């Protein structure tokens, strides 16, 4: 297995691990971290793809560079929304299906 193959699989593994965590964890900050890292997994994949030929392909590099900036924008916005939710409800997680408010009832 070549180095590029290892990085390709690493990107896939990061993506999968974060996809799992995104669904399983309830706390919104964990979800934000999971989405951000999922993006990183895709970036690793793209950079490894750029490395497959004899020459390094600069187009995926430019895409990843763009992606990193978009990721930090999205993360900053998501964190601001989490803070807003926490200010409004006192909790940083969403109610489960079938409940109106988080279990320890500090909502409102």
């Amino acid at each position, binding site marked *: 297995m070549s180095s590029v193959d290892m990085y390709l699989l690493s990107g896939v593994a990061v993506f999968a691990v974060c996809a799992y965590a995104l669904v399983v964890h309830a706390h919104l900050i964990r979800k934000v971290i999971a989405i951000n890292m999922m993006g990183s997994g895709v970036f690793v994949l793209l950079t490894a793809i750029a490395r497959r030929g004899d020459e390094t392909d600069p187009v995926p590099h430019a895409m990843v560079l763009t992606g990193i900036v978009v990721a*930090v924008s999205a993360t900053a916005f998501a964190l601001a929304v989490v803070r807003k939710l926490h200010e409004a409800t006192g909790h940083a997680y969403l109610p489960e299906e079938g409940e109106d408010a988080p279990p320890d009832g500090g909502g409102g």
Partner: protein
Amino acid sequence: MSFAGLVLDGLLALSLPVLAWRALSARDLYRAVILFITFGVILALAWARLGAPDIALAEAAIGAGITGALLLNTVGGLSRKNDKDDERPDEPTDRVGRPWRTRLAVTVPVTILAGGLAWAVLSFPAPVVDMPSLVGEAVAEGEVSHPVTAVLLDYRSYDTFLEIGVLLLAALCVWSLGLSAVRSTAPEAVSGSPVLAGFVRLLAPAMVVSGVYLLWAGTSQPGGAFQAGAVLGALGVVMVLTGLLVPSLGRGGVVRAGLALGFAVFLLVGVVSMLATGGFLAYPEGFEYGLILAIEFFLTFSIALTLTALFTTVPPREKGGGA
């Protein structure tokens, strides 16, 4: 590639998913954020190994640095408001341990997805279009010799234009949420420390110099507006954290204009070049180098300012009060 290199790549490739897992299953959020930052640093190393120094620079400054600071400050802010005995943000502890049925219902599709993806990436067909040499030809025509910068600002400048738009939009969205001002969540011993203040005074000029250097170097070697903006933005965040830069007391109009400047200049160049040559952002011949450098300069300024604004989350007040 040498055997030692292969082992190093293997270790880096293995530690990325392991770190991601550890970060997301860490028992408290503070630990999760620290592991997230570690993940970012290892990722930067992996990119250096993959021959992508531009991305490694951006990841170290933005991915690990600024995103890490954003997360730490949010976690700190949540736990402070919570007023509980333990300083951890409220975590629905009853939900972290989900029933095994739920976990299984998630694990199975994720495993299938991962398997399919792994099979797909390992059996990629050889590239049909030889991008590196195409870019090489395009770069040879232009005057910017570093391929990544050439792709970002000459070859595919449209993407970069939209990207600065996204950054601006994110800052506007965050401002419009009407959050209370972010105070440094660092303890008094840190934020009031003379050692830290002295360190930042020493650091600031050095970071400005390296930011400008990265911008200038970007035309011919790794570097460019985004890396330079990231370094200067990180400086802005550090200055906000140490209280040297008070975000809410700035001159509102100037800050707003500064945020929009990069986007506005890019748009102006695009429209003017459309009138001159008939194509949006198709730079007229002979002007490429100057135009690209001008765009990069304003981009750097706006990126640095926007990253700082994303951190402070509140718009500056206009001079003489008002919101």
